[in-house]
């Protein structure tokens, strides 16, 4: 069996599993979908992790990570994918947001496996800390009062998906294409390792930094190899910082402008006056109306 065929089968099974798990009133097949999804993902990974001959070996694009890290990758990846499925299938927005924090934490774990320490912690602080708290606030502010007698039920628009079948077909078609491209095929070497790709050594980074400060090359070479510099390693944060401020000064300015514009925009949106005629009178009648239309549809 060739690699693309295996990936197509996995995509089709994953699509079926997700369709079964999508929110639908009286959905009894959700556990079956979860089981099928877990089996698909597990089977796919067994084929990927072991040299079973089902997947071409990708010695061409290894990352040079120590062999012990692979278990962490599989754990974090499984958590991230399971939590992501929960985000899009849960009926309560609050729980969707909580599961999204799980996705962020697992993603940060995968960043650590890739030795991107700074990005991992920035992810947790900015996403898990700042953005998700804002989401929580809005969920609390804008939640609809539940209909009397149906307090355990979510509103109708959370209980029904909108064409989950076609969305899953389109999504997993895209996934099949992406996987076919990203998995290496010896006949079609799309992602061979760049022969020049080598992380710059600490001494090189130090020399570049010192040369940039106006020291001439020989002098900075000497400085960079002096014991006080070679004693401590150049950390990931320092590398990212040097790259950010040395090579992308314009992009930093643009990011600052975008943040300023969005700050002003958020203030303008928050202060927009809604004329009383367009304001919704009270949310309870909206719930009653929604119940009516839903009853009419049924």
């Amino acid at each position, binding site marked *: 069996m060739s690699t693309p065929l295996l990936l197509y089968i996995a995509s089709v099974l994953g699509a079926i599993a997700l369709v079964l798990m999508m929110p639908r009133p009286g959905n009894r097949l959700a556990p079956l979908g979860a089981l099928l999804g877990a089996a698909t993902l597990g089977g796919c990974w067994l084929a*990927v992790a072991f*040299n079973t001959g089902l997947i071409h070996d*990708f*010695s061409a*694009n*290894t*990352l040079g*990570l120590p*062999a012990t*890290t*692979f278990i962490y990758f599989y754990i974090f990846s499984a958590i*991230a*994918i399971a939590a*992501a499925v929960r*985000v*899009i299938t849960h009926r309560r*927005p609050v729980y969707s*947001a909580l599961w999204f924090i799980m*996705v962020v934490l697992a993603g940060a774990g*995968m960043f650590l496996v*890739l030795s*991107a320490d*700074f*990005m991992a912690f*920035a992810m947790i602080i*900015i996403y898990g800390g700042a*953005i998700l708290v*804002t*989401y929580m606030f*809005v969920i609390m502010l*804008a939640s*609809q009062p539940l209909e009397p007698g149906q307090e355990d039920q979510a*509103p109708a*628009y*959370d209980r029904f*998906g*909108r064409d*989950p079948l076609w969305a*899953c077909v389109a999504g997993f078609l895209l*996934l099949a294409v*992406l*996987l076919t491209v990203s998995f*290496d095929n010896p006949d079609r070497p799309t992602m061979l*390792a*760049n022969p020049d*790709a080598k992380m710059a050594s600490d001494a090189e980074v130090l020399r570049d930094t010192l040369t940039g400060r106006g020291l001439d090359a020989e002098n900075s070479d000497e400085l960079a190899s002096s014991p006080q510099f070679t004693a401590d390693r150049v950390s990931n944060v320092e*590398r990212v910082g040097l*790259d*950010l401020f040395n*090579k992308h000064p314009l992009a930093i300015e643009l*990011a600052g402008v975008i*943040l300023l514009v*969005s*700050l002003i*925009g*958020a203030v303008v949106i928050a202060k*927009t006056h*809604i004329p009383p005629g367009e304001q*919704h009178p009270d949310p309870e009648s909206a719930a009653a109306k*929604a119940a009516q239309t839903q009853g009419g549809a049924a």
Partner: protein
Amino acid sequence: MNEMLTPLGLSHFLMTGSILFVLGLIGFVTRRNLIVMFLCTEMMFQGVALALVAFAKFHGNVTGQTFVIFVLTIAAAEAALALGLVVMLFRRRGTLDVEAWQTMSG
């Protein structure tokens, strides 16, 4: 044992990243709750960020990680604006259902 295992490659991370991206896409298309839809766009950002960091490691170039900082910047700006809009839309219609705004599609 270790000879049987394939080493962790770029493809592993691209696979996880593309699965996260596609799940976010499906959630964005199917869910009708405005807040959950924006949560799904954040999930698509997660998938892209993972691919960027994996490529940074693969090519031995930190610029991929630097770009994730800009992705985070855009995500923060987007969350601030989108959530402000969601609160305003909720005050007008009293519901978070996107289909309450179907007249906007023309």
